[in-house]
Each structure stands twice: as C-alpha cells, then as structure tokens.
C-alpha cells in the first residue's frame, strides 16, 4: 500500500478512536452538563484494563491472555467503576468539584501506571498488546482494524443516540437545564448524573482499549492531560450536545492537530520542534475561544430539541 494511503488509514483510525471518547464526553457534558476534565484518566483505565486482560502471560508481562472481546468489555467495565468512584462523592456538589475530582483520578491513574510495574509495566509500559482482526483482509495494513473501529464508532453512536432521545435522555437535559426544577418534579438528579457519568466513561474506556489495541504498546506517557484538552476541543468545536457534532469535531480537530504538527516540522528549525505541542495548543486554543465567543453551539450545535421530532404530535391543535 502506498505511503499516503497507509497514512490516511492511520489518521482515520486515530480520529475514530478519539471520536468514541468524544461521544462519551458529549453524553456527560453536552447532554447532562457534567464537567469531566479527567478524560485521559478513563481513557487510560480502558487502555490498561484491555492490555492487562488480553496480553498473553507467555510474554512475561502481567497478562491474563483473555480473548480480545472480553478485553474490550472489561475495559468498559473498569472505566465505569472508576467513574462510580469519582461520581459518588462529587455529583451532589457544585460542578467544579467533579472537575477537580476527575482531574484527580486522571493524575492518580497515571501515578499507579507509573509506580506499579507488577501490574502496568511501570514507565516501560506494556507491549505486545493483541489486536483484534490483525491478520484479516490479507494483512491489509490496518484497513481491517480501521473497519472494526468504525463499527465500534457506529455502535456507540447508535446506542448513545437511542438513549439520548429516550425519556432517560430527556431527564438528563432537564437536569442540565435546571437541577432544582428537575428534582422538584421527582427526578433524582444525583442518580441520573451518576448514570450519565458512568456510561460516558465506559465509552472513554472503550476508546482507550481500542487505542491500546491499535498502537500495541502503551506507557504512562500516552495518557497526559493534553488528551483531555483535545477531546474537549473536539466536542466544543463540533457542537456540544450533538453526537454528530462530536464525530465531526473529532475529525476536524485531529486534522488540524496533525497538519499543524506536520507544518511545524517542515517550517521550524529543529531546535524549536522539540516542543511543537505549545504551538498546537495555541492554535487549537485560539480556535476554541473563537468558537466559544462567536458560535457557542459549535459546528452542529444544539439546534434540535431534546427529543426526536417523531415523538412530537402534528400541529393539528394549532
């Protein structure tokens, strides 16, 4: 396969993996107003859980050698459990407390990843992580895996959309809009928020698991807070509240990120390239500020009502 094509496959796979995390964040922030800035933590939990569950013990690493499907499910469960841990103490309090606790869990997860070599390989990380469908399509250079990731994106998208547009999703929006009014109408804000946090984090866990399977090697350096920033940028740019927006935002932001990285490498002297991250953050940060100020609803923002049109009566009573 040509270089351009294989690069495109690589690009699309990464963007698609990101988009799953971004769909999860859309449920949490876009629909429920939950302020999770520990996305990288839940992503890391998913990645490590998948790696530990699926790596063959024969490699001499901590691994259980489970089938990949069990690894993917296990990653989601693990991320969900961590979300419970963060959500229970904070979801009754002001929004910022969840933010602080989620960044806390992200840092703690990284500490564990770095300091427990028996479990996580420590700073050396874990390698030889099994990839599903690796040999399929005659070793097509990752096309088979890309298709698998896209199927996962589609499944997560459909599942979340179905829930968002159910009465359950309607309650989430009510709580986002006015918690006091929602609880005066019999909705337990805490319980619904917790559900939303856990389900969204499970999507982030799946995203992390697919990342581990894609790269086949993970170490604590893969799960820095910059990942959280990227996912937030994707959601806000695409349109907070809209699953389609989250998908589009992932593509756009990842494209800008990759292109600007490439441009910096081409244009700047080698000395300054050491940390192209700063320039990329400025670029995305500027874009974000412009979006927040001038188009707060993003590319595909909350224009649709909370519940699908099909459940709305025709205008006969007008």
């Amino acid at each position, binding site marked *: 396969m040509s270089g351009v094509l294989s690069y495109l496959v690589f690009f699309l796979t990464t963007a698609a993996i990101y988009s799953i995390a971004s769909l999860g964040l859309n449920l949490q922030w876009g629909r429920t107003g939950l302020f999770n800035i520990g996305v990288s933590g839940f992503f890391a939990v998913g990645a490590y859980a998948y790696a530990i569950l699926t790596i063959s013990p024969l490699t001499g690493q901590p691994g259980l050698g489970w089938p990949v499907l069990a690894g993917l499910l296990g990653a989601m469960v693990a991320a969900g459990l961590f979300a419970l841990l963060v959500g229970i103490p904070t979801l009754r309090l002001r929004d910022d407390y969840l933010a602080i606790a989620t960044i806390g869990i992200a840092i703690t997860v990284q500490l564990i990843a770095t300091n427990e070599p028996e479990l996580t390989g420590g700073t050396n990380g874990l390698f030889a992580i099994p990839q599903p469908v690796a040999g399929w399509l005659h070793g097509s250079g990752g096309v088979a895996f890309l298709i698998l990731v896209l199927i996962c994106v589609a499944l997560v998208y459909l599942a979340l959309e179905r829930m968002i547009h159910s009465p359950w999703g309607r309650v989430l929006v009510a709580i986002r809009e006015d918690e006091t009014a929602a609880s*005066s109408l019999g909705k337990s804000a805490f319980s619904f928020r917790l559900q939303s946090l856990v389900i969204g984090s499970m999507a982030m866990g799946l995203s992390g698991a697919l990342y581990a399977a894609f790269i086949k090697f993970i170490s604590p350096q893969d799960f820095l807070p910059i990942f959280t920033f990227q996912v937030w940028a994707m959601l806000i740019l695409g349109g907070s509240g809209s699953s389609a927006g989250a998908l589009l935002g992932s593509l756009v932001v990842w494209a800008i990120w990759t292109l600007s990285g490439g441009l910096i490498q081409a244009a700047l002297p080698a000395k300054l390239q050491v940390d192209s991250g700063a320039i990329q953050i400025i670029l995305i940060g500027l874009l974000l500020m412009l979006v927040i100020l001038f188009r707060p609803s993003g590319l595909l923002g909350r224009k649709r009502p909370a519940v699908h049109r099909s459940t709305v009566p025709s205008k006969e009573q007008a």
Partner: protein
Amino acid sequence: MLEVRHLVKHFGGLYAVDDVSFTVKTGTITGLIGPNGAGKTTLFHTIAGGYRPDRGEVFLGPKRISGLPPHRIFQLGLVRTFQIPKPFREMTVLENLMVAAPGQLGERFWSAWVAGRRVRRQEREIRERAVQVMEFLNLGRVAQELAKNLSGGQQKLVEIGRALMSDPQCILLDEPGAGVNPSLLVEIVDRIAELNSRGITFLLIEHNMDVVMNLCDPVLVMAQGRLLLEGPPDLVRSDSRVLDAYLGGTPA
C-alpha cells in the same frame, strides 16, 4: 392534607422560618401572604424538601415528608412551582410537560432496548396527557416553542402545566401572579379555581391582594419568619396587625 408542625429553618443567626405551624385542609386554596422577607419562599422551599428543616415536621396526609429529598416528596403527591419560573429553557413546552410525567418506564436507560414497545406506548399516553394539559392552559399554540422564548407569564403556566402532569394531591404555587400581564392573570386565576374544583388542594404565596381575596380561604399571614394569624380573607384584610406587619416590613 398538609400539616406543618413547629417548623424552623435558620441560616446562622437569621431565623427565616421560626416555629411555624398550620394545616392546609383538603380541597382548599390556602393563601400565604406577608411582607417581603417574611420567609414565605423559604417556608415553601423547606416544605418541598429543598432545605432540610432545622426543627419541626411536615406531614402530607398521614405521611411524614420532612427530611425527604425533593424528588421523593414529589413522588408522594406534593408539587411546587417557583417564584421566578424555572422552565427547562432549551426544551420545548411539550417536552417540559412530558418530562414531568411520573413513573416513566423509559427513564431507565436500559429500557430503550429491553422494553422499546412499552416505552413507546407510554410515550404516546404521556404525550396525549401533555396535549390535554396544554389545551387546558391554553399553551397549545406554543407547544413546539423552546421554553426560553416564552413570556414570563407563559413560563408560569408551563410550571403549572408540569405540576399537573403528575395528578398531584397538593400544589404549592409561589406567586403565580407576579410579573404576569393582567389578561393572562385572569386566566391563571380562573385555571387555579377550575383545578381546585376538580379536587386539587393549593397553598399559594401571592402579593396581589385581588387574587388572594378572590381565590383564597383561609389566608395565612407571615411576618419575620413567624405565622402572624390565620383566618378568612375578610378578617385578615381588616386586621390591624396585618397592616402593621406590611408597614413594618418596608424600610421607612
């Protein structure tokens, strides 16, 4: 219907509700008046579970509701509205009403898969009920409008509509007439009377004395956190203590 016994709510040294006791009899529209800062809204908030009382008890029928969270109190049949309307701004009027229906199967996140058909049937029923309520409150024209685009008076109607979705036994209305234009006010008063004749008990805070005199019997008067007196509207109107409370409640 609703019995409040020795209720106390204080913030530091400020006793917003100070040993208040009264009973709202089934089938009445009980008015609650008093100068600004008398503690009326705090009293509402404490009854409905928004604040935890520092002392005292509240009973809804035979059931003790003080100390329960707001969503539990709602489920027992007591609904409240807010002084400043709190519609779900980014939702349509129809959705505002539909979300308020109690006992929705579809509120379990898994039922979108395991009970799709039953959820859809229930959604149809809830929608029909919401359409009825909107017609009753004359909100049919704005069913598809986002709540944030409505006037203040219409938002009050949406709140009443949301309260009605649950067939409550008792509704606490916090200033249904405030900031409402006169023609809409007539309509709101008319609807409250109509609902009362169908068996719903009301406790309402109101500053507009015409509304209180027309609608409420008995009337409770609060001042400085305490219950001053209780009686039929004519008696309350002519009681000098009430006038004193109002005059004393405004800065000279």
